[in-house]
């Protein structure tokens, strides 16, 4: 790692990188031809090619958002990004067939081990495409579809065509347009009626190359009265130049279905992470976003739920950690579009060493949605006076029967807490680690245990060596 890169990112554990052994690599920069080439390479149906081109045109016309962190957004040089990179010619279902350097990366990230222990299926994406994919036989037998998105489009074009872009159209925002134009990889999941996937399925996204753009596209459909827990993790090497991760995730929970989508985003601090995530919950369905943002340079991401059917429920639990040079602009959006829908939003953020975390929230209750309940809690913890935390909540309430609660707090670690913990034998860094882990506990306890342990370790490491 260069000194410059080190200064920028500190001690990021997953900052290693492998040699770039790509089999296909597009030249940097974006054009209609690049978009068509990606589609041609993947041998896609015409409707998808057309959609990509339309989205590309929209992306070019659409101005940058004029909110969030505009200065940082304007640093993105779209001409200096590689939009497609294939590093393996096939998606394997046996780790031993995955090229050694890539396999080693995922070994270091602990993926094969986790798969054996507690996962129902795994997809591992390296750069633009999945290099490994597997699903437990029993799930397959029950008719659960879990594929990488490219294979999903090939094998189940009708389902994909029916739902793709219905929750997040390419015109939603500039980055959903970009994703629709150049998407590659991601997961495609369909859970049949009444099937409960008991073990979580996981996707792991890894960017290895410099100035890489990763644009995965995920579509999860849970049919009536089914349930699934999907977990994603992300890391990237530390470089002194920037990469871009711009995903689109669409969830559809049919009547009575439940989807939980958990993310631990730990990109290195040179990655722009601009992601659109949204789910539709039909009658009595539940969508839960459990969203952890630890890494990246700038994250702008607001997991959203459209409560479309009566009695649907949304749960968004998010945490953000903003260290030196990082801005986490995260939050949640819940739209109560039907009567008697309920939602809970819990957002917790920590800023340290000049980092900035923002909560940006939207809560909407439409005029016809009577009997809705929502609770929003935002807590911010500042670890020093150089850091920044801000809150931008928006509420649009069109129905007077809505029962809404909103609580917000900003706190600092007190000298009394530190003295107390240090008098029990903890160093200052250990004491900070304990306080920080405790602050995130309402989030951590929602994660599978393996993730919770890993997250706690990660935060403890973040606290070490940077106590002034």
């Amino acid at each position: 790692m260069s000194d410059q890169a080190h200064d920028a990112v500190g001690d990021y554990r997953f900052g290693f990188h492998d040699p770039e052994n790509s089999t296909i690599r597009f030249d940097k920069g974006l054009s209609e031809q690049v978009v068509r080439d990606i589609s041609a390479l993947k041998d896609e149906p015409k409707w998808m090619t057309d959609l990509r081109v339309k989205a590309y045109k929209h992306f070019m016309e659409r101005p940058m958002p004029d909110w969030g962190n505009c200065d940082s957004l304007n640093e993105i040089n779209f001409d200096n990004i590689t939009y497609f990179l294939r590093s393996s010619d096939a998606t394997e279902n046996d780790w031993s067939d995955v090229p050694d350097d890539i396999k080693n990366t995922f070994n270091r990230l602990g993926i094969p081990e986790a798969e054996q222990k507690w996962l129902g299926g795994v997809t591992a994406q390296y750069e633009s495409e999945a290099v490994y994919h597997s699903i437990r036989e029993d799930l397959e037998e029950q008719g659960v579809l879990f594929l990488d998105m490219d294979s999903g489009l090939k094998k189940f074009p009708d389902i994909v065509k029916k739902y793709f872009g219905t929750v997040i159209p390419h015109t939603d925002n500039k980055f959903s347009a970009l994703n629709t134009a150049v998407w590659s990889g991601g997961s495609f999941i369909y859970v049949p009626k009444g099937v409960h996937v008991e073990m979580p399925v996981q996707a792991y996204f890894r960017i290895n190359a410099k100035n890489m753009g990763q644009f995965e596209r995920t579509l999860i459909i849970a049919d009536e009265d089914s349930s699934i827990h999907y977990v994603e993790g992300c890391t990237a090497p530390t470089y002194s130049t920037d990469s871009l991760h711009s995903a689109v995730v669409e969830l559809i929970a049919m009547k009575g279905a439940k989807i939980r989508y958990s993310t631990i985003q730990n990109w290195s601090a040179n990655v722009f992470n601009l992601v659109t995530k949204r789910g539709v919950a039909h009658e009595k369905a539940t969508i839960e976003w459990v969203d952890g943002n630890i890494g990246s340079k700038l994250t702008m991401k607001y997991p959203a739920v459209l409560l479309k059917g009566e009695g649907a429920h949304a749960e968004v639990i998010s945490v953000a950690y903003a260290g030196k040079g990082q801005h986490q602009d995260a939050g949640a959006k819940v739209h109560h579009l039907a009567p008697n829908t309920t939602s809970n939003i819990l957002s917790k953020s920590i800023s340290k060493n000049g980092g900035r975390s923002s909560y940006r929230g939207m809560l909407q209750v439409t005029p016809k949605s009577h009997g809705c309940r929502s609770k929003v809690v935002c807590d911010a913890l500042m670890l020093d006076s150089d850091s920044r935390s801000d809150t931008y909540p928006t509420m649009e309430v069109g129905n007077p029967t809505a029962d809404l609660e909103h609580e917000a707090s900003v706190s600092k670690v007190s000298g009394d807490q530190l003295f107390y913990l240090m008098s029990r034998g903890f160093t200052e860094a250990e004491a900070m680690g304990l306080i920080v882990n405790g602050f995130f506990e309402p989030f951590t306890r929602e994660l599978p245990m393996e993730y919770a342990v890993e997250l706690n370790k990660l935060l403890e490491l973040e606290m070490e060596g940077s106590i002034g």
Partner: protein
Amino acid sequence: MAKVSEILRIENLHVSVEGTAIIKGLSLTINQGEIHVIMGRNGAGKSTLASVIMGHPAYEITEGEIHYLSQPLEQLSVFERARAGMFLSFQYPVVIPGVQVGTFLKKSVQSVRDEPIKGRAFRKELNDAMSTLDMDKTVLSRYVNDGFSGGEKKRLEILQMLMLNPKLALLDETDSGLDIDALRIVAKGINQVVPQAGCLIITHYQRLLDHVKPDYVHVMIDGQILLTGGPELAHKLEDKGYDWIDVTPEA
């Protein structure tokens, strides 16, 4: 004759906070197995004394010295003092949201012990200590001091003391606000650590001393120890207050 082992020796201690003198020439020696009680009015500097011994960064020692196990303490930070066997039971224990008591205790005990602690042995030790203090196991999954009553907080302080097994136990008004049963339990904890430790109890009340037998009772007034006696002194203070003590400082 048993060898007397010195735990704490304070010589002519002067302490200020933000330029205001609070302790003004205090000397005190505590040996292993001894219980010292400090009584005095609010504002006499009693809690300051406990905090200074533990190393609170807000207090400045302007004169004098504190020796712990015959070594000067000055260079040691708070956590190093804890690891060297000092323990402070807080008057107002602090809430640590989201941190479970069980996790906290294990990490704390591990931080002061040299050898790695073993799961089963640790659990047994913890169970024993909790039954001594008549504590319910459900406390282990609660967050540290979060939503605890005054009595529960103090009991948790004593549980920590038993688990950390200190050489010097400083108890800052641990008895305040406790009912008689809780008081008896706290006393039981103190009596358990005393044989191998030196103990300094700061209190306003004589009633704890029905269950814990002090070797010395000191009266602290305006930053100094003005009078030292045995257990009978505590009774006298409880009856007569502090006004009868001559507050004219020695020349």
